């Protein structure tokens, strides 16, 4: 359930650069970096990529320097299922980001393939209650470090969903980083009782200021996506 990480640099994409960068990425992810060695589980395929070595974007270290860059990867991704819950219009995606580069990076924006609105959120204490709100300045991923997106903490908020997300469904999320690269991942929906975020839009990035609640009932989410077995419903014995 997690998946691939693709890092694209929109400007420098020659075939030669690709090949070289892939090689470098391979070295980096096989343990050379000081970061927690994510031995690639099937769910965290480090396909990091393309032309990182040639990224001149945000200044600082880049091609030709001695540090091996393998970009940012994400593992352990999942999204809270909303089918059967009180508020099916929003949910959140989680995972563990690893920055294998020598420079601090920031997630500056995100998008997803099921809704038109995605925000980067943090949890904060407002008037004695924890609420979530857009995180000012994006979500940092320290050089050679990790950032965990988890219920109750930083997360990628998927908003304005028109249909419920059922357990087992996949949502594709794209994160855009401060160096212009992107990280694409797939998150499988899981039933989860928590992450009942109260949304306070009035913090940093100032959306609307009303507070809305994303809540779930305690009953199991039953969604009725039909397929081959639709007509057969009885149980034997």
């Amino acid at each position, binding site marked *: 359930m997690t998946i691939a990480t693709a890092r694209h640099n929109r400007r420098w994409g020659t075939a030669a650069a690709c090949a070289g960068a892939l090689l470098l990425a391979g070295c980096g992810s096989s343990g050379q970096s000081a970061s927690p060695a994510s031995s690639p589980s099937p769910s965290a395929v480090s396909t990091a990529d393309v032309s990182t070595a040639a990224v001149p974007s945000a200044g600082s270290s880049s091609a030709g320097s001695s540090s091996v860059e393998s970009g940012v990867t994400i593992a352990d991704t999942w999204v809270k299922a909303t089918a059967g819950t009180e508020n099916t219009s929003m949910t959140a995606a989680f995972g563990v980001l690893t920055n294998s580069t020598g420079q601090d990076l920031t997630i500056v924006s995100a998008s997803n393939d099921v809704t038109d609105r995605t925000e980067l959120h943090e949890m904060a204490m407002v008037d004695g209650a924890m609420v979530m709100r857009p995180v000012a300045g994006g979500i940092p991923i320290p050089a050679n470090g990790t950032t965990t997106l988890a219920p109750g903490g930083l997360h990628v908020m998927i908003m304005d969903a028109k249909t419920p997300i059922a357990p087992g469904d996949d949502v594709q999320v794209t994160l855009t980083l401060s160096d212009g690269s992107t990280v694409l991942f797939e998150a499988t929906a899981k039933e989860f009782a928590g992450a009942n975020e109260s949304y306070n839009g009035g913090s940093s990035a100032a959306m609307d200021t009303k507070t809305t*609640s994303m809540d779930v009932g305690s009953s199991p*989410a039953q969604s009725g996506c039909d397929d081959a077995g639709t007509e057969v419903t009885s149980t034997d014995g």
Partner: protein
Amino acid sequence: MGESSDQAPRRYSRRRLLLTGAAAAAGGAATVAIGGGVALAQGRQDAAPPALVDTATADTTPADTAPADTTVGVEGDGVAAGTIGSATVPFHGQHQAGITTPAQAFAAFCAFDLRKGVGAVRLAKLLRLLSDDIERITSGRPALGDTAPELAAAPARVSVTIGFGPALFDRVGMPGARPAGFADLPAFPEIDKLEDRYGGGDLLLQICADDPITVAHTQRMLLKDTRAFAAMRWVQRGFLRARGSGSEGSTPRNLMGQVDGTVNPTLDADVDRLVWHPGPGWFTGGTMMVLRRIRMDLNAWDALDRSGMEAAIGRRLSNGAPLTGTEEHDEPDLTATDATGLLAIADFAHLRLARGIGPPLQIRRRPYNYDDSPGSDGDSDVGQVFCSFQADIANQFVPMQQRLAAGDLMNAWLTPIGSAVFAIPPGCQPGGFIGEGLLT
């Protein structure tokens, strides 16, 4: 989580209200987030987000670092490497784990019925979720979304084995994919007193581990991911001696005191022939499970003297040796007679009837004991969750069970009260999921 007395400070009460309100008011105007709730309970007052930005390994996820060997040591969680708690059983492989795996001390068998509308597509989604959970849990890592990840730190050789009931193939519109020879058992009217609450099911999860907390937590996590797709039908729990209590690798005893399970295929060639389905097709490398809940009437059994007990089984209680031998694994002499001219191993003895005549068609037995609460009369409610694996139920299990039903003296004290069969798909490799051969 016991509540304090009414001396509790008001501040605390307000917090408690905030916390419990979120759960109780399911959908009310609660403005509390669960994560925030935790922070509140800890008295966290600052406005800083509980951000989890770390330059070291994230503490919530010892993930992705599990070595491929047979033990894991999870630092900081009190489970030292090389202990019973740290041992792991690989999830990936040609066959599923929990079949030829030496029996773990504790088990929970969980059966479900697919919910209305869950067909092949949704079943595949469920099996992907479960396979991901199992891969993580069996390597000592928490499942995604585990709110008590510390409980996953002691894998204790946990294995989870997934099975499909006979009706599942119809429900997902694939009746032709049901393996040949796989069907509900015929009735055994001489002995059966089956109860619905212990029988049938579309989907099985067999959870085994050497630690009962690991079993419980694994069950909790897997049920959470299953319930949207399938309704709970029954759970049967079982146990053997705790790991380290008996000698490693010895044949377990059942709650009647008998050494139970002496004859079990162990050689690779025998296992290949008797346990794994030869194929062809998606079921190649799978096997079939028979699960029978067998109640023991210990009151009546207690009325027998020791020699009567031994005659009924055909083995000695002391070490499980056949009555014609001295050691457990001595080959029984089925023709030997005693001083009175009667067969030393009687024609009603369990051992003789289980063997049958002709080429042996053994089954892989993997039984557990159960011990439920006695009734008001104080009589024990104990027995066995009999579990066996065989390549072909119709050829291996059924003829043996028919012989036993017709003549086993043990039937006087044993009553089958539950019965179910499951087709156990082959294993999967990294990136795959259990059941992929059927559903993709």
